[in-house]
């Protein structure tokens, strides 16, 4: 007699043991520690912090190791952990104009107040695999290239001459920004909510969308107005104290994309902007984000809006890698019941088809 398959628990335990073994690899090779990941793979760590929406290098490092380098899985871990953290308040807005940049470049002006500063970048490196010893020599030659001069934001300079749209409308009531982790998204979204969605959006997806706007699918004529990387202070205004308390410094990458705009009935021609702000060193992500942010503002400027990157609902509801990966991968879960239902139907349809054709043949004869 048939006995239904049992033993799900045991099978799961075995699978997990095998997973752990695969993750450990060759036991003769030393185990990679989380702090090594956090300090030696800072770009990867930044990605996990960004899409995980949690600034914690150590946890990101742990997640990357635990997931054997599966970055989407690591992001999922960080997000799930983030859920358990109670929210005790909101920090003050960070001031990116005050950050002493480790890197600061502009593609719009050759000479800018405060100067261009390359900082740590893969730009201009030859993409050749190097020997470990060569890398060490480079480090020894690496000097502190941190400027101590004032480096105002390029957009502030352009803005003061009214060539660039202002940071916000005047008069401005400075509304509380949306919080997409606490309130369900409703379309159309506010720009603040959209930017949050983009900040935690999948880097590859945003890159492809940003790229598509450069290829005519929602052209926005972008210029990299300014990209800056550096550490800023996070401050928290505790109501019981009555003043802002510094909580610590975080590293961020900010990109202000400057875009052409020809003006309309109500507005003179001026440059408009797309904005990107992300944790750590994640320049490609910040640039992609700012391209997509600008593309999504098409309606604000009465622009023709028919490209994928301009479609808010399409972009924001598919940008999250945790959602996308989970739903794609859930196809691995059993679907016995619905498959059985469909099987039943297909059989019935085939049977009816057969009967019908038999009838037709009889009629023919």
């Amino acid at each position, binding site marked *: 007699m048939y006995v239904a398959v049992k033993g799900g628990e045991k099978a799961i335990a075995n699978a997990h043991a095998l997973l752990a073994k695969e993750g450990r690899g060759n036991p003769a090779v030393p185990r990679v520690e989380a702090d090594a990941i956090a300090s030696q793979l800072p770009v990867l760590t930044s990605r996990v912090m960004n899409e995980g929406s949690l600034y914690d290098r150590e946890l990101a490092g742990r997640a990357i190791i635990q997931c054997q380098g599966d970055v989407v899985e690591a992001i999922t871990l960080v997000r799930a952990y983030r859920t358990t953290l109670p929210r005790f308040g909101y920090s003050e807005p960070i001031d990116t104009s005050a950050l002493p940049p480790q890197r600061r470049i502009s593609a719009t002006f050759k000479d800018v107040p405060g100067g261009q500063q390359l900082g740590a970048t893969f730009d201009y490196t030859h993409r050749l695999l190097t020997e470990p010893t060569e890398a060490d020599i480079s480090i020894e030659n690496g000097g502190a290239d941190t400027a101590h001069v004032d480096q105002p934001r390029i957009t502030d300079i352009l803005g003061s001459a009214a060539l660039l749209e202002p940071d916000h409308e005047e008069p401005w009531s400075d509304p509380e920004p949306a919080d997409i982790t606490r309130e369900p998204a409703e379309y159309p979204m506010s720009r603040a909510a959209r930017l949050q969605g983009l900040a935690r959006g999948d880097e590859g997806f945003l890159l492809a969308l940003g790229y598509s706007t450069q290829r005519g699918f929602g052209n926005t004529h972008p210029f990299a107005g300014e990209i800056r990387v550096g550490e800023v202070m996070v401050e928290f205004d505790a109501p019981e104290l009555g003043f802002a308390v510094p909580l610590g410094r975080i590293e961020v990458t900010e990109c202000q994309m400057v875009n052409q705009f020809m003006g309309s009935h109500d507005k003179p021609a001026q440059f408009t902007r797309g904005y990107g702000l992300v944790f750590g060193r994640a320049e490609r992500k910040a640039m992609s984000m700012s391209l997509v942010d600008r593309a999504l503002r098409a309606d604000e400027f009465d622009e023709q809006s028919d490209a994928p990157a301009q479609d808010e609902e399409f972009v924001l509801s598919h940008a999250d890698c945790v959602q996308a990966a*989970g739903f794609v991968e859930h196809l691995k879960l059993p679907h016995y019941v619905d498959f059985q239902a469909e099987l039943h139907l297909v059989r019935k349809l085939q049977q009816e088809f057969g009967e019908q054709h038999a009838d037709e043949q009889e009629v023919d004869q």
Partner: protein
Amino acid sequence: MNSAKIEYNIGYIDEQTKRMIRRVMLKAVAIPGFQVPFASREVPLPRGWGTGGVQLTASLIGKSDVLKVIDQGSDDTTNAVSIRKFFHRVSSVETTTDTTQATLIQTRHRIPETPLQEGQIMVYQVPLPEPLRFLEPRETETRQLHALNEYGLMYVKLYEDIAKYGHIAKTYDYPVIVNGRYLMAPSPTPSFDNPKLHQSPALHLYGAGREKRIYAIPPYTDVESLGFEDYPFEPQAFEEPCAICGSTGVYLDQIITDDKGGALYVCSDSDYCANKFAQLSKEGEGVSE
């Protein structure tokens, strides 16, 4: 690097979030069949693997609860085992496979065969809460259609089925109208299970984590499966009995027994099947005495 040990709240989710989810559930109960948006959180399961159901269960579960988790009707499928273990770990609540003992039943794709009772809560894992989604991809438009009670589009799909196949060809996630007002997706349960929803004494809660929606069918609510006057809804039915317990009028899984097309059919509800089989064996012993 010294890592601090992480401690979790009871039920994993923090209390603020639980309160928010409970408020959304109350709203969902107050407007039967209406999809209430909520700020869905990440939980330690991937999206699409029941994160909506897990958030509802986490917000509902208390010390006196007895939890049952099923997937495809069975307590023993991997995802059911995984979710049951998770709740045992983060809430140390009592778990069961017995439908009659459970106060809270989290499910994917089935409603138990054993009739539900007053006071029981069913929590469904929902992949796509919007019944109109494949007819109209835009959320902004589907919300309008619900608000204005415009469901002609859904009937077009049913019309097309009849024109093409001679009958409605929707076999699971079969759309229903709840309390005479809202069109609702009952999650991918087979249409076989739809009649169990009508005037059910239990509370049915639906959670879609990735899509950030919660909806509900309160106890004793009218749930009508769509159909035409001359082509009414017909739940799928199986002709053969279960090969293990002999039950009829239950939903069956097909088991492939060899590579020559051999197959037999057994109950998809493993708890129901085990009970029936035990009963059968007892009766059998009674006869032999």
